[in-house]
């Protein structure tokens, strides 16, 4: 049975303390998830750089990894989040462009496909606008929950903040998102 399938993340990290190249097994296991998450926020090209920086940083900090935590994804998402913040303007620009055009500026669709998608996803434009308007720290929490599928506790660990702070940031962000969605939903207006 290959190591990459039998060992926990913590075991792989610990193994890399002695055999550094084993850290590549952690890359093979999680780089795809991290890349997709970052690409949803920043686009593929920037995601390439962020993923590389994330794993190099994780590798350099591997001796600080708490091996009592069997899964390393929250740790990696936390590091990636720090790099994402360096591209905040890019991220906001993408969301704003989507909210106006219904198409991401880095989308590689043909014009026809883009128009089709823009039409199909019109309801999501206010959502992108809401994401653009959030404070960076609130957006980080919201997207780690919604896109990275982390639990509150994992988000707290990833961002090194108390779980209560996770809840308050998430509540704040969701209120803005709900408000943005509610304003486009006539059904809500009738029933409220």
């Amino acid at each position, binding site marked *: *049975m290959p190591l990459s*399938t*039998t*060992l*926990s993340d*913590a*075991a792989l990290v*610990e*193994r*890399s*303390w*002695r*055999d*550094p*190249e084993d*850290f*590549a097994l952690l*890359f*093979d296991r999680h*780089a*795809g*998830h991290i*890349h*997709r998450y970052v*690409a*949803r926020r920043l686009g*593929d090209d920037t995601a*390439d750089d962020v993923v*590389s920086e994330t*794993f*190099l940083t994780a590798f*350099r900090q591997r*001796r*600080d990894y*708490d*091996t*009592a*935590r*069997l*899964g390393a994804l929250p740790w990696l998402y936390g590091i990636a989040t720090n790099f994402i913040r360096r591209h905040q303007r890019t991220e906001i620009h993408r969301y704003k462009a989507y909210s106006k055009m219904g198409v*991401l500026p880095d989308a590689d669709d043909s014009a026809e496909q883009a128009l089709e998608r823009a039409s199909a996803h019109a309801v*999501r434009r206010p*959502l*992108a606008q809401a*994401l653009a308007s959030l404070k960076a720290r609130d957006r980080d929490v919201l*997207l780690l*929950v*919604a*896109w990275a599928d982390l*639990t509150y*506790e*994992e988000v707290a*660990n990833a961002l*090194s903040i108390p779980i209560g702070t996770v809840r308050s940031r998430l509540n704040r962000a*969701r209120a803005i*998102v*709900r408000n943005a*969605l*509610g304003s486009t939903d006539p059904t*809500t207006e009738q029933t409220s």
Partner: protein
Amino acid sequence: MNERTDLTELRDLFADKAHPTADRLAPARTALLAEARTKRRPRARVAGLRRLMLAGGLVAAMTAGVIAVQTFKPAAPASAAEVLRLAAEAAIATPWPEPRDDQYLHYEQIAESRPEKGVPDPGPRRINGEFWDSVDGSRPRLSWGKPSKSRPHRGRGEYKELATRCPGHDRLTYADLRGWPTDQEQLRHKLAEHGKEMVLKKDTATQIWRALGVLAHPMPPKLQAAIFKIAATLPGIETEELTDATGKTGIAVTRVDDRGRESFIFDKTSYVFLGGQELAPGLGREVWSVTRPQITDELPAWSKSLKPGGCV
């Protein structure tokens, strides 16, 4: 807009973003490997992962460097074989109701690293964990890690998590161990097979000795006693006085092989098994202890709020 809908809509936003191809990730992987190769050191021995897996992640930080020779107190009076014989008697002295497959074994485990002179210090680490292991492994395992406040370790703090058993993972369950033989010859063979994966050295005694890390798992007392009896027959065992992870001084049975010096520690008067210690040249010293498990039908109520995580 109800509370579920906003997250659902958000989850769908840009959800058509595909996973990157291997080609796309290749430059980042290459950069990582290039850096890793600059840090590569000669492989001295098989990596000491066993304790990590046995302790469910409660592993002490190890680090590289040269280790100073450890000074031990004078050996205890009893012979190593006699200590193990008494430990075997102690193991089966307490009544043990056999758990059902649908029950849990609740126990406490402590792991601590004790950096040695000449070894770069990763910071003292001490983790006290409580575990609820599903007897047959069919239900999620609950872990509650509680780092010492007086001696915090690097990394993150307290955690509570539920993890399922990965398909094909070799982590032993109580039900697996219940199926092990207690007949001396058959068990000797089983231990040697188990230990083969852990040591470079091929002699059977070393393979059996290294397989004794299985003692960190909750197991039927009859099996534990049978293991102690086999250990008593191994060449090269000796006694010494060591302190376990709780700070209690006990009598230890130690054997030295190509991976280092591994000891199993027993209470000095009752000979109840307390835990162990591994001293590996260049990597520091790791001490661990385990309490006798209690059988329980359910996980604690507070665990209901936990979302099952990945597999281990």
